[in-house]
């Protein structure tokens, strides 16, 4: 148990192993980060980086027979790797809740919006029906529905994608969680709707001192909304720090390369360089830096030395033998 009540989510030397048919596959290796009360922390990564597996591990959505958690992972001081299922059920939906990329698949198509929020309330609280109704209206206006009464009587198929995601946020916040896990919640939405949804989320984060653990592949997006960022690559945390530091002064060559290949307005015939090669496969673990094969600053020892994460500035930590200065 951690002593600091302000740390809502903490991973220490977290490794995750997917189990299938008696075999184990390591998907995340030695990841450490902390999310404080009221903080918006974004974990960014490309495919195969392990970001979604980490989010699922926090909720323990996969049974221990499928996902083995090594190291420590705690939510409000409770060890997610070892907590009995009953304690997990209390944590989920109460201390923490989660929203997903595709709201339609998470909503029940044959229940009204009100009934779905009500279900979340009844599972974790014992309120009178008048109190529950008031709470449902409050939640729907929190996610910026002008006519909460009208929306509450509607079914998911009557709503647009953005409205569905706002309903998901209302359900997720029903029991005043401390932590909201958001796994690419706006990837399926148009950019104007994405902005609407995220601005609602950020406003609620401030209003309720909510901690947001945000999973994304989009650096530009998290740059706009996150307080701190962790950069994952091939199952390993390459760099963490304040958003301003990581984006403004990246310490890891991977972060720098990723920033350099975000497309920008092109002047004349100038080209931006991409990163040669591909992300490492999840079943291909080796000593040395995960990014070494594609790194333009690579030294011979990068390919063979096990590298620990170390401080690189007041807010930054980096896993690199030759960090950028």
């Amino acid at each position, binding site marked *: 148990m951690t002593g600091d009540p302000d740390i809502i989510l903490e991973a220490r030397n977290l490794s995750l192993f997917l189990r299938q048919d008696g075999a184990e596959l390591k998907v995340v290796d030695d990841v450490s980060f902390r999310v404080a009360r009221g903080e918006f922390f974004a974990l960014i990564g*490309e495919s195969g980086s392990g970001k979604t597996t980490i989010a699922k591990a926090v909720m323990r959505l996969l049974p221990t027979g499928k996902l083995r958690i090594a190291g420590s992972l705690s939510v409000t001081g409770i060890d997610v790797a070892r907590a009995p299922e009953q304690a997990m059920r209390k944590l989920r939906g109460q201390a923490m809740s989660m929203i997903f990329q595709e709201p339609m698949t998470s909503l029940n198509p044959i229940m009204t919006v009100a009934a779905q929020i009500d279900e979340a309330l009844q599972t974790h609280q014992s309120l009178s029906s008048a109190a529950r109704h008031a709470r449902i209206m409050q939640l729907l206006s929190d996610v910026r529905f002008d006519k909460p009464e009208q929306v509450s009587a509607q079914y998911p198929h009557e709503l647009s994608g953005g409205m569905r995601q706002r309903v998901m946020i209302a359900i997720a916040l029903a029991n005043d969680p401390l932590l909201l896990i958001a796994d690419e919640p706006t990837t399926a939405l*148009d950019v*104007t709707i994405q902005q609407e949804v995220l601005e609602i989320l950020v406003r609620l984060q401030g209003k309720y001192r909510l901690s947001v653990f945000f999973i994304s592949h989009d650096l*530009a997006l998290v*740059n706009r909304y996150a307080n701190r960022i962790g950069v994952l690559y091939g199952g390993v945390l390459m760099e963490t720090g304040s958003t301003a530091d990581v984006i403004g002064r990246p310490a890891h060559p991977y972060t720098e390369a*990723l920033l350099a*290949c*975000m497309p920008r*307005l092109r002047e004349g015939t100038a080209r931006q360089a991409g990163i040669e090669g591909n*992300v490492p496969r999840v079943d291909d673990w080796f000593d040395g830096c995960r990014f070494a094969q594609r790194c333009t600053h690579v030294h011979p020892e990068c390919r063979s030395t096990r590298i620990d994460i170390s401080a690189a500035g007041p807010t930054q930590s980096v896993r690199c033998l030759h960090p950028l200065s």
Partner: protein
Amino acid sequence: MDEPVALRLSGISKTFMTPAGFLKPAYRTPALKDISIDVRASEILAIVGESGSGKTTLGRIAVGLEKPDSGTVHLGERILVDRSRGIHVPASKRGISMIFQDPTSSLNPRMRVRDIVGEGLRLAGVGRREISERAANALALVGLRTEDLERYPHQFSGGQRQRIGIARAIVMEPAVLVADEPVSSLDVSVQMQVLNLILDIRDKLKLTVLFVTHNIAVVEYLCDRMVVLSRGEIVERGSTHAVIQAPQHAYTQRLLQAVPRL
């Protein structure tokens, strides 16, 4: 600057019928309303819009996968579509190729790359030896090796699969390439490789590209001019620099302001 018009879409309208449902009568949804666009030779023109804007339908009409209700499509001087005269040249005879969003689902997993890339030529009656030669050339143009002809799609990464999709498109020596969100399913670190490849083949083959996308950042990097679609209508058009730096229409302004930037 004043290249001839390679592809001209004039007065294109398209309405989709939504079939009747439970207690709900059938109704018409207008997808495109009187759209006219000139794409100049060897330019990359972006059709930008959000979902429901009609951008994909417009691309499919240009390729011949969809028939407009009214309007004409010209490739240079050649008439491809003229609804008033009942003309509709089939997709296979247009000289326009297409690349798709998802390279995995658009490549047949049971076919070798040789057959995927060569299929269009085979259907056009080209001989086997010439097919092999042209498929190998197309593969070289997209940065793959001749040995890759014998492999299957699952043996490639996402970025390489999109290269195969591009090889399949250019092997037909099209005058125009229609690309519908070709980099949207790729990782950021791979996306730039494919964007640069599209620029390279445009330069080498003097190809005209109609690039359908919702991704403004990609348009900024890749496209010479852009057309902004909203609910089936063109709200703004111009050089990418002009539109990005000084958008005139309220919708474009709202769209650009919503795009997160670094």
